[in-house]
């Protein structure tokens, strides 16, 4: 007889409040669960959690570099007086703005300023302060690239150091329009190309650039939606293949130019043409015969490709072309049925992932032996629950994961996977909204720390809302 462990009621039920959850973690002494619940603990509990978390130098260092360490723990780490961790904390991507600000006020380390200039969470006033005062070129270059940099920061950099960071500023999403013009006029061809590639480039600059003979400038120009119409025809005969290929992707390309580019000598140009939604049937028939497999492949994926074209491509010698047909959202079911028995598993797998496959076809694919095909069946929301219940016990972990990822798989199918030998599957289920907290509670003693962390993180997030509501309610009262 197997040994049994009887659980007391408090052990077997999920703690319902933040306080009870933290109390459970404190009692268990689980390090990773403590990290997860730190954010919902009250002041007294937090102090006890920190005694557990920051008890050894090794743990502190590990926490400062662990990718999952939450912002509140990083903030607590940054305030540890006996152990300076400023660089590690500032380097961490989860560190919040207030912690970064605190670090900046506490330190005059130039390396720290460089890290702050790069950090996406650095508050805007701090970035502006760095832009005003700093002289280090590496720091300022990082600042010009920081996606959180405000227009004032970019303007200030452009004023303080003309031409030095123009390429970075011109590529920044927040660059003011008037500054783009300034950068264009004083910049070299690389800066000009960056300005022209910007989605807010003024039309006047496009007209100026149209007179350029520089290939780099024209490559940037040809992608712009506001390209002057007169230039479209000229560029379709440009000697640079990349310019013609980019032109072939334009939605406003006249029909006669599409036909011309479909006969282009460059494979890359014809590939771009094959993706177009407005191809005439004759052009599609022609491209279906193209010697370049990639042209045929892009055509096979084209949702506007007609039935006859798809039928022809479904017999292609290249498996990637046949797969492209099987992935086409408008592939007829009769073709999918043929492709489901293709001799290459990668083609059959494409059918298995198709949303418009019949249940009969899905049942036949479920008998396949290839892991890619079975993974597709497992992940397909149209697969019958009875099939999914069988696939849960597949020996292939990829197939079992397919079931976990299946949006239609309900709790009755997923429950056995809480015992899955692969830790990642248990991590995924610990954060799954499909399973009840009570079901997941069995993972609290999981041998893998990542699973326990995911579970307590999920429970802490759930417990956070009532705490916040109570706080709001009390304050209002």
């Amino acid at each position: 007889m197997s040994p049994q462990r009887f659980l007391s009621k408090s052990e077997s039920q999920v703690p319902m409040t933040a306080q009870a959850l933290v109390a459970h973690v404190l009692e268990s002494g689980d390090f990773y669960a403590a990290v997860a619940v730190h954010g919902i603990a009250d002041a007294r509990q937090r102090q006890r959690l920190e005694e557990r978390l920051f008890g050894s130098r090794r743990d502190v260092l590990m926490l400062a570099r662990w990718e999952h360490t939450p912002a509140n723990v990083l903030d607590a780490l940054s305030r540890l007086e006996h152990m300076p961790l400023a660089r590690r904390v500032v380097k961490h991507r989860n560190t919040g703005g207030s912690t970064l600000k605190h670090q900046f006020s506490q330190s005059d380390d130039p390396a720290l300023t460089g890290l702050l200039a790069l950090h996406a969470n650095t508050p805007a006033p701090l970035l502006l302060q760095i832009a005003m005062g700093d002289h280090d070129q590496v720091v300022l270059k990082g600042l010009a690239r920081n996606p959180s940099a405000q227009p004032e920061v970019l303007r200030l950099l452009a004023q303080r150091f003309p031409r030095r960071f123009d390429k970075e500023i011109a590529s920044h999403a927040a660059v003011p329009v008037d500054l783009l013009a300034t950068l264009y006029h004083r910049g070299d061809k690389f800066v000009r190309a960056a300005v022209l590639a910007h989605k807010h480039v003024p039309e006047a600059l496009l007209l100026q650039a149209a007179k350029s003979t520089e290939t780099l400038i024209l490559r940037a120009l040809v992608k712009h939606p506001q390209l002057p119409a007169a230039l479209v025809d000229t560029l379709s005969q440009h000697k640079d293949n990349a310019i013609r290929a980019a032109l072939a992707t334009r939605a406003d390309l006249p029909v006669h130019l599409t036909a011309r580019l479909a006969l282009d000598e460059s494979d890359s140009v014809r590939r771009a043409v094959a993706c177009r939604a407005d191809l005439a049937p004759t052009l599609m028939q022609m491209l279906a015969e193209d010697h370049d497999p990639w042209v045929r492949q892009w055509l096979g994926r084209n949702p506007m490709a007609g039935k006859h074209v798809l039928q022809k491509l479904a017999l292609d010698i290249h498996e990637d072309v046949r797969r492209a047909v099987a992935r086409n959202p408008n592939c007829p079911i009769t073709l999918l049925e043929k492709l489901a028995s293709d001799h290459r598993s990668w083609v059959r797998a494409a059918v298995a992932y198709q949303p418009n496959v019949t249940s009969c076809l899905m049942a036949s694919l479920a008998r396949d032996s290839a892991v890619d095909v079975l993974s597709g069946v497992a992940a397909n929301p149209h697969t019958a629950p009875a099939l999914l219940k069988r696939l849960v016990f597949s020996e292939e972990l990829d197939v079992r994961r397919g079931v976990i990822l299946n949006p239609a798989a309900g709790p009755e199918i997923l429950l056995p996977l809480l015992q899955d030998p692969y830790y990642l599957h248990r991590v995924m289920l610990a954060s799954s909204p499909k399973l009840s907290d009570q079901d997941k509670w069995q993972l609290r003693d999981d041998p893998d720390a990542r699973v326990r962390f995911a579970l307590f993180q999920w429970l802490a997030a759930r417990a956070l809302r009532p705490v916040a509501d109570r706080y709001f309610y009390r304050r209002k009262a």
Partner: protein
Amino acid sequence: MNTILVVAEHRRGEVRPVTLELITAAQQLKTAADDRVLLAIIGQEAESLASQLQWAGVDEIIACKTNSAEFEPELAEQAVSALIVSRKPIAVLLPHSVDSLGYATAVAVKGGYGYATDVFKLAYDGGALVATRGGYNQKVNVEVDFPGHACAVMTIRGGAFKPVETVAAPLLTVDDRSELSARSRPLEFIEQGGGGDIDITTVEFIMSIGRGIGEEANVEDFRELADNIDATLCCSRPIADAGWLPKSRQVGQSGKVVSACKLYVAMGISGSIQHMAGMKHVSTIVAVNTDPGASIFTIAKYGIVADIFEIQEELQAQLA
């Protein structure tokens, strides 16, 4: 002086690359300058195959000639057992492969040797050999020692050790075992259909895509780029899970270790620990990511903080 015996694996006249990983593992077990690494190759063509085994770190190649052209577990078992008796190694390293599992257990049990399978780490603890392997369905790592055994037979997990790269000219000894006979005889070899996809553990140049790819149509853009630059396109787990690339192209803990890769271009891969487990050993890693704080930059030799689509477009334009 200790002796470590490595058994090479070969198929259709070619030594399998995993053999080179075993040589590295054996080198790690050497504790004294006069410790010896012996590399045995078993089969009818053993002598001619020995020319493919001229690697640094091997002191002696033993071409163990048998009378069978194909791999036969019983002959391998008898040959390895005889070598253990005559050469007295402290450790016998075999690949953790279907071939080895066909005879390694029998060698260990019949000889009364220590035995561990799927070993991915080897070390000494106070002079005692300790092997690390997965346990409880890979939920935990288990350290195994072999008290009371003069020799331990171990199958080594593929990709766990970096393949040896330096050539040398070890001593060659021919050991004629053509008198060995098996109690069974293979009648026919039937080729498996299989997926037929490329084996990513053997390729040298990989371009890999991750979550940053966004949608399936973009995968095709990168496949085209990889084709154009003669790279093999691989991926992180979410891409394979979405069915956008075959599982055989997945790099990482739940995928494969790209043991032969020399250049790895990571496009839009943040660098989870699980992914890095499959590629962090690569000597040249180029990472492209918009997030300067992405973990992948901690192991990259060259880092580009940029949009992967811009890089892809630019490379395509250059190639066009």
